[in-house]
């Protein structure tokens, strides 16, 4: 019918996000991320072993004292993985908001004029043209390994994603009639952009955030794996995995716990992103 869309009263936007999360996908994702995050947060309560204390028992399998076994230096893997999760989450939860903020600011700047749009778009292209690894190497070469290079690389890698997503949303919403109505009503361009267009364009960013978090876990892992990340002996999931590779054939149990935690995080965030995406598209 001509007006079939009329009867489709869209449920509240917050409700759509929520209803997306309350599917098997969303709930599984939340459970995975929640379990891993909780383990990381409660690390000091769950274990009193120092993650960096070396012991005489190297490469031991799981036992009552060391539930996940020990690494090549005799450090307790249970404690290292739990603390490693904490480090990982701190890193990505710092880096992703920074990247999101910078990306969205750039997109808003791009919305102001054609020249600004051109400049911002080319800057995004430049960032995207750098493969993540080269970017990581370049940043570490300047700053040396440590926490901040990881945060900077993750943030830089997220900027174009957020920026492009928001820019696309702004371009669509700006052509809608209510934006024209606001302009005709006398609102200034900045007011139209911030008060009318922006609130309607942020929906996809919620999905983008979940995608960015999973990407963050991934980038941290890759950087630590290559020895560009957080300085040893501080544990991160990536660095434990990197160590374990040398012993994969002789002691596969070494890699199991960090691998499981990383997988659970990435899978969880991806499932949440997918659930949110389906929720808002419904």
């Amino acid at each position: 019918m001509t007006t079939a869309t009329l009867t489709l009263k869209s449920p509240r936007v917050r409700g759509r996000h929520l209803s997306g999360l309350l599917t098997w996908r969303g709930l599984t994702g939340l459970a995975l991320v929640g379990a891993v995050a909780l383990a990381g947060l409660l690390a000091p309560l769950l274990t009193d072993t120092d993650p960096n204390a070396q012991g005489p028992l190297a490469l031991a399998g799981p036992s009552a004292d060391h539930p996940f076994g020990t690494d090549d230096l005799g450090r307790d893997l249970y404690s290292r993985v739990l603390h490693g999760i904490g480090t990982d989450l701190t890193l990505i939860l710092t880096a992703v908001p920074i990247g999101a903020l910078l990306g969205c600011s750039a997109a808003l700047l791009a919305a102001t004029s054609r020249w600004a749009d051109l400049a911002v778009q080319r800057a995004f292209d430049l960032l995207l043209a750098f493969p993540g690894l080269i970017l990581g190497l370049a940043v570490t070469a300047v700053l040396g390994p440590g926490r901040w290079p990881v945060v900077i690389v993750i943030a830089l890698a997220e900027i174009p994603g957020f920026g492009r997503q928001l820019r696309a949303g702004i371009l669509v919403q700006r052509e809608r009639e209510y934006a024209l109505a606001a302009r005709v009503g006398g609102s200034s361009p900045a007011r139209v952009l911030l008060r009318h267009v922006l609130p309607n364009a942020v929906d996809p960013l919620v999905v983008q955030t979940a995608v960015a978090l999973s990407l963050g876990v991934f980038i941290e892992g890759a950087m630590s794996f290559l020895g560009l990340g957080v300085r040893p002996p501080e544990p991160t999931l990536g660095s434990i995995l990197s160590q374990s590779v040398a012993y994969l054939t002789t002691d596969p149990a070494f890699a199991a716990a960090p691998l499981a935690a990383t997988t659970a995080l990435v899978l969880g965030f991806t499932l949440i992103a997918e659930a949110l995406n389906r929720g808002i598209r419904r």
Partner: protein
Amino acid sequence: MTTVLHVTDLTVDFGSATAVDGVGFELAAGDTLGIVGESGSGKSTTALALLRMLPPGGRISAGSVRLAGQDLATLPEEALRALRGRRIAMVFQDPMSSLNPVLTIGRQLDEALRAHGTGLRKAQRHARAAELLDLVGIPDAAGRLRDHPHQFSGGQRQRIMIALALAHDAEVLVADEPTTALDPTVQQQILRLLTRINRETGTALVVISHDLGVITQTCRRLLVMRDGRVVERGATAEVLSNPQHPYTRELLAAVPRLDEPSRAAANSTPGEQPLLTVRGLGKTYGTRRRSVTALHGVDLDLHPGETLGLVGESGSGKSTLARALVGAHAPSAGSIRFRGQELGRRPRREVQLVFQDPYSSLNPRMTAGQIIAEPLIAHGLGDRERRAARVAELLGQVGLDPATAGRHPRAFSGGQRQRLGIARALAPEPSVLICDEPVSALDVSVQAQVIDLLARLQRELGLAILFIAHDLAVVRQVSHRIAVMHGGRIVETGPADRVVTAPEHPYTAELLAAVPRLEPALAGPADSARATALASNRSTA
């Protein structure tokens, strides 16, 4: 006559809601049946249920659809697919999106012909495709099989959709709002085509429309639907001349008639000095090398308390003119003066715009009160308390409860949303209201209410209104004067009644002839000859 389609007690549920409730009708071979109703009446759902193509969530919970003895409501999907397109076919509303843009018309017709394994060889199918295009009145049919959909106009695309539906000589053709997306002159051609096909091939026709005029032009019998039920049925002429059900009477009364004189003079008397003077207004889009001129030197005067109707088909430049007047874009040439003063590019408090689509023109994230207060904030009028009082006053003025200010637009119906849009436009106390197709997206009964509201506001506030629409009957009813736009120019201006009764420009006459009337006059031979002439004229345009 034999019955080809026999629908009994058809009921369609969406979850717990019943969209179609016990609809039944019979369709004889070669007969024509119209289903008319407003949005939400279940007429489109009925059409989709006939072919069991309901959207997800909908299901036929009772009743039967018997096509030549087989019940389509219970037939296995496989068997049903063999019938769709072959014995019962459908034409949809939007010809722009119903054709695959990357395939040639020939390929698409060929595919339709191959779909049911008719065993025709390639050359035969090619000949049949050309024959079908010729049947629906596409000039040079054989030569155009290699063209893609974008090379055809909207009306021609709807003709091609009809050709696709006719590929297998279906016994029943269901047309769901076949002309709603088209201009009146093109609509007229498509309606004549449907009538001709019904007469020549004997295909039974079911036409679904919100427009009684469309049904009157094509169908011998009609059903009036409301809230999923059939409230009245009978021969078209009889229902129109002697409606039994109160809803049918209401519907008929709400339809604007072209032969009714203008009511504008009784409503308000225009002032002497023009309020808005437009001279030589031009607008060109695009780059210098590939430019499109939307407005060619438009001249216009609008007096206080006057309603100037502006009619024209899509692409004639109506909306471009409206947007130039409110300063949404800068004109390429000419001047717009308000009380003798040139209007610059800054926001114009005195000239406000009412939009066509009451759905997309209201920000879904804001409440009704915020939406109406927005122009007040933008023009720095009043403080918080004074604005709240003004919002309440405006809501009352457009006939809405001031207590609804805290609700979001989605909580309002289409007509109520249009009232919100009018309240927003009135907020900064303008003296000119530009209404760009303010009632085209609304049901006829709601349309009448909004028109009454605009008339009342004009009487009370002395507003000058530029009323843009494509429906000449509505325009005549509300306007003091009518301006006719064609190809970016104003081709005729004059008193409303004179323009309708004695048009001076041939284009105005053409527009007038295309308005579907409520007298059931099936096209005679002279008429169809004229239609063919018109068709060939317009296809070149």
